[in-house]
């Protein structure tokens, strides 16, 4: 089975919905160790995505993802804007003008996304950033591809890995982003960006459960 262009569009729309529902929760996490806007920023961006998506949702997957990237870049701002924009941009570049993708494509796309985020933000693993949810998900996908798991199962384990990664940010001391200003005081709080990243992968797993 495969992930179609429409599946990708559904995933993005569902994520916009998930962000809207978790707006306050994400902002609350950011209040603890940041500046209380991560939910608001993401929500502003994905509201704009919902407005602009119709113009590209009949195009190929790469075009869809790149258009999401451009919208996020010009509406989210903050650290989250360039980083989430990078995720969609790099994934879009790797996937290119396909109308459907397989698990290996998705893995390569997510890996490119993670590399893009790392290049842009210069964070390392365990710096308490969204990468701490993204990297484990990519690793899990890699194993799933190697083991030839069916797509729904593969997505499930990658979302679970992201979830574990997200929770693992709690004890960490932040070394990047606004939370790093807190030094030791950042420990004991879950990273908002890692949380929204887990939600992104979790939404994919749910949206593509029948692929």
């Amino acid at each position, binding site marked *: 089975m495969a992930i179609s262009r429409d599946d990708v569009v559904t995933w993005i729309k569902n994520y916009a919905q998930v962000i809207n529902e978790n707006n306050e929760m994400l*902002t609350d996490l950011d*209040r603890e*160790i*940041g*500046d*209380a*806007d991560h939910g*608001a*920023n993401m929500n*502003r961006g994905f509201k704009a995505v919902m407005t602009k998506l119709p113009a590209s949702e009949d195009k190929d997957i790469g075009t869809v993802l790149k258009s999401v990237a451009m919208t996020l*870049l*010009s*509406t*989210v*701002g*903050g*650290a*989250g*804007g*360039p*980083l989430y924009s990078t995720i969609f941009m790099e994934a879009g570049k790797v996937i290119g003008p396909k109308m459907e993708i397989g698990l290996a494509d998705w893995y390569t796309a997510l890996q490119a996304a993670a590399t893009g985020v790392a290049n*842009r*933000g210069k964070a390392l693993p365990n710096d308490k950033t969204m990468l701490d949810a993204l990297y484990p998900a990519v690793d899990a996908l890699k194993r799933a591809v190697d083991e030839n798991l069916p797509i729904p199962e593969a997505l499930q384990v990658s979302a679970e890995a992201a979830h574990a990664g997200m929770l693992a940010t709690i004890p960490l001391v932040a*070394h*990047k*982003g*606004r939370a*790093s*200003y*807190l*030094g030791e*005081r950042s420990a004991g709080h879950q990273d908002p960006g890692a949380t929204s990243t887990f939600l992104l992968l979790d939404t994919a797993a749910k949206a593509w459960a029948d692929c």
Partner: protein
Amino acid sequence: MKKLINKAEDVVREELEGIELAHPDLVKVSYDPAYIVRADAPIKGKVGLVSGGGSGHEPMHGGFVGKGMLDAACPGAVFTSPTPDQMLEATKAVDGGAGVLHIVKNYTGDIMNFEMAADLARGEGIEVESVVVDDDVAVKDSTWTAGRRGVGLTVLMEKIVGAAAEEGRSLKECADLARKVNGQGRSMGMALTSCTVPHVGKPSFDLPEDEMEIGIGIHGEPGRTRMKVEPADKVTEMLLTPVVEDLPFKAGDEVLLFVNSMGGTPLIELYIIYRKAVHMLKEKGIKVTRHLIGPYITSLEMAGTSITLLKLDEDLTKLWDAPVKTAGMRWGI
């Protein structure tokens, strides 16, 4: 949340409308993407100065657009870095052929967005240099953190480099000057109360009625330590001592002393702090030859203050004194 606003999501746009109505002699306003640009931009042969950052720090940066200071400012959502498209369009709008300098406060978001904008502008053939301000001694600077934040010194840098650009210095000279200012200036701030981001609707942090937060940022980020409220003189010591020791400022130095209100602290209190700061500096043999006192880089309605010291020399003093005509800072014209 008690604010004189309409809908939270309209705050920045309506503010821009007010600025456009109030200052047509000084600035033009673009709404999509959002930026404020000098009425007479681009100025042929002059280096263009662009800054930007989250809204909520007024008058910075939009209030500093005008003759002798910024050529353009990009306002983000409240406390959120603006986006590359704004910065790109602003950069294009002020490019008079001598290149454009981006003044970027050191926050991950600002850095990344300005980096992307600079890349895009260079792609369109505009010469762009970026300078990062990171003067906040409350934050440990190391390769293991995002580094020090850009705070009060930004205002002084924008004034001084603005004067240099106005008198015709080159892009490289302006960038070097900005880096020199950054090397010679340090700041630290504190809060008595939190502030409330309009679209969030509740205070960015909770501060009990008898406590203050020392080492606060300008976005309601928590500071270094929280403690019982102390008298103004003690607070001044807690801010000024780390500032002086960090550079360090030394006996014989001539400095600009900037006592800033975070928004909710009135002028009467700033003068009390200024007084104590001058006394302290005098004791250390440091001479205050220039000053700035007032709400110039704020955090919405937050009560609190920040102190910035900048070591001056003849050139910096002359550039500080040069005429400036903006909504937020004006003298000599």
